[in-house]
């Protein structure tokens, strides 16, 4: 963050730095592999109980009502100490939906447990035939008395095999074109008929998943909002989610790795390499500034619809750019298989670069975001005979 911090903000940074150092286990710092929920459980609880897993949450739900600057300070300090990424679906997506649309019972049952990682959530939106064109989803749910019977196949349900609960968009109406035929429902992953399976990624982990749903019976009280309102409820907070997926934490981690690699290879003494590194650093400054500005606009009630798409896209591109520079300056080391933990003696050249390719795909591809920006921010017309899709 380039701006001058107030004394209170400086004090918050000092508190965060000291607390993180005292509480984050050494073995979890600067991990190369994306740690699994079982490995993260203890740390997630500690951070959640402090109110810092989702610092922007209101105090009544266990957050600290953090200001935009406080949020960025926490992001910077988490990146500095090498804190691992936490599964975000419960924190940034389903919980805000429940805060707004959930019943009191649903809030009581789920919010506190999502905040401390006691319950890990996975999102079941995409299907093999419904990716960017999400509204065409076909997983079917039939109401039988006070139950919902679900049959179908979800995919890209990140972390589903480690998750305790899923939130799914399912089709409850006959007309596949109608908006009111989709419903959002919460499903306990232990329910009979729920079968998750890992999918090995380009980066070598298996965090991508698919989930088979065979005659899965859930109580009708697990529906969020009303039946048939799932599209509105499930996408209402996409804007919120996408602004937060523009978090600079990935880019800051990338910058840390880049500098570590540069010191290891000697690129930090080569003027040509230093220009590339400085270019990457400027990109991170720009991302932080754009993210902070978007949070401030949101806090002032002045957010534009397009802010979320722009931040989501830019966060992905800036992070990928920093890792691309890391590859460029790494010479013969570029393709080295990484050690499990990157430190000064054995930096990671490849793993996080490979992982970064997911950022421009997950949660709505960058192409989907460009389509939204073209229509919503620039006022260009929906692609017709001359172009392809471009649906939000």
């Amino acid at each position, binding site marked *: 963050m380039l701006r001058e911090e107030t004394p209170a903000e400086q004090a918050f940074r000092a508190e965060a730095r000291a607390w993180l150092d005292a509480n984050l286990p050494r073995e979890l710092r600067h991990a190369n592999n994306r740690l699994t929920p079982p490995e993260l459980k203890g740390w997630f609880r500690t951070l959640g109980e402090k109110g810092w897993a989702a610092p922007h949450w209101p105090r009544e739900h266990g957050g600290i009502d953090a200001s935009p600057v406080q949020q960025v300070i926490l992001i910077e300090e988490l990146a500095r100490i090498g804190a691992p990424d936490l599964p975000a679906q419960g924190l940034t997506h389903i919980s805000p939906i429940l805060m707004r649309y959930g019943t009191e019972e649903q809030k009581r049952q789920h919010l506190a447990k999502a905040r401390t990682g006691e319950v890990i959530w996975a999102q079941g939106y995409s299907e093999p035939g419904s990716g960017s064109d999400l509204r065409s989803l076909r997983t079917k749910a039939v109401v039988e008395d006070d139950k919902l019977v679900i049959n179908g196949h979800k995919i890209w349900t990140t972390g589903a095999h480690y998750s305790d609960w899923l939130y799914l968009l399912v089709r409850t109406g006959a007309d596949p074109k109608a908006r009111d035929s989709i419903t959002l429902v919460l499903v306990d992953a232990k329910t009979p008929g729920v079968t998750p399976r890992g999918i090995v990624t380009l980066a070598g982990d298996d965090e991508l998943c698919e989930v088979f749903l065979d005659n899965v019976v859930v109580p009708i009280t697990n529906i969020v909002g009303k039946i048939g309102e799932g599209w509105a409820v499930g996408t209402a907070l996409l804007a919120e989610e996408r602004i937060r997926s523009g978090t600079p934490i990935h880019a800051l981690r990338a910058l840390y790795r880049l500098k570590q690699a540069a010191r290891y290879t000697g690129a930090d003494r080569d003027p040509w390499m230093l220009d590339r590194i400085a270019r990457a650093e*400027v990109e991170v*400054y720009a991302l932080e500034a754009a993210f902070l*500005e978007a949070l401030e606009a949101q806090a002032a009630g002045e957010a534009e619809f397009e802010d979320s798409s722009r931040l989501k896209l830019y966060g992905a591109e800036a992070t990928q750019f920093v890792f691309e520079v890391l590859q460029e300056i790494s010479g013969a080391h570029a393709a080295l298989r990484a050690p499990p933990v990157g430190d000064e003696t054995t930096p990671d050249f490849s793993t996080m670069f490979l992982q970064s390719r997911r950022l421009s795909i997950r949660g709505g591809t960058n192409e989907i975001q460009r389509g939204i920006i073209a229509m919503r921010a620039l006022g260009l017309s929906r692609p017709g005979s001359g*172009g392809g899709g471009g649906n939000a």
Partner: protein
Amino acid sequence: MLKLKDTDRHIVDGIADLMESAGGLPRVRRLQAGVLSFDRDAWGKLAAHGWLGAAVPEAQGGTGLATREIALLLEHAGKKLMPEPLVPALAASVMLARSGKAGASLLADLIAGKTVVMPIEADETSQAYTGYLSDGHAADAFLALIDNKLVAVPRQTKGVAIETQDTVDGGSITRLRFDGVDPAALTVLASRAQAQEAFHAGRDLALIGYSALLVGLADEALAITVQYLKDRKQFGVPIGSFQALQHRAASLYVIIKASHALLYEACRAGAARRAIAALAAKSYAAETAMTTVKECVQLHGAMGYTAEHNMSLYFRRAMALAAAGGDAIACRKRLYAERQLSQDF
């Protein structure tokens, strides 16, 4: 993006009106077509509106705008392709204001528009070239940091040779050659820490100022282009309905907004990070503006390549501004000189 405050409206509308009353884009076209152009009437208007004193506290005769407000002024001047060398003049005004009494009379003349003053990079006065200064042909006097002293170098100083080369936007790059200048004959405005502080404060403001001109320029170039995408029809539909073009326009929008955010974040930097912030903002704005004008010419097709289309004015001005005060690579080089790699975030 945060909305403008009501008090900002005065600045935004004021500079837009001034540029329009001075002659709008037809004037810009005339000046770009000329060589070593300088519109004294427009300069007088800037003085009359108090903009030449924008960076000077009211107690010293200026209008005392905050850095953020100066950026806003220049962003909107950039949209209208303001050809006047307001940025180096503002930088010089900061240096003079921070020099105290010694700089007072030159500062008063600068603010009044009587004397055009600009800073130039120099190390010594014997047999030496200074660095290049954009649009230095319009300067009546230069400010330089020599031997730890901030000195004023009037244009006619004995032993000063002025080398000026004209640029594609009707402006120039200028450098001085000192040959037998008597350092004792130069007016010393400030010494040691005060001189350093004054010069660097002005230099950092120049970087912010050029960034703001570039951000405004890029923003307006994209707005013109998006309108063209809506108006121009081919294959029976507006070409803006083609996804291939939409995505390129969207990509420009994203980086222009990022450059805008970085600029205003940099305006809020404290003394310790001011130079880093300004260098980051300028290097990013220079690259963003050049990417934007190149894409905007392409998105206009053959019309975009004509001199007749106003995009040619944006393109040429972007080239000059991207280099002014230090191009992207020069800024990054200085950024690393200011801040060693070993430091973290």
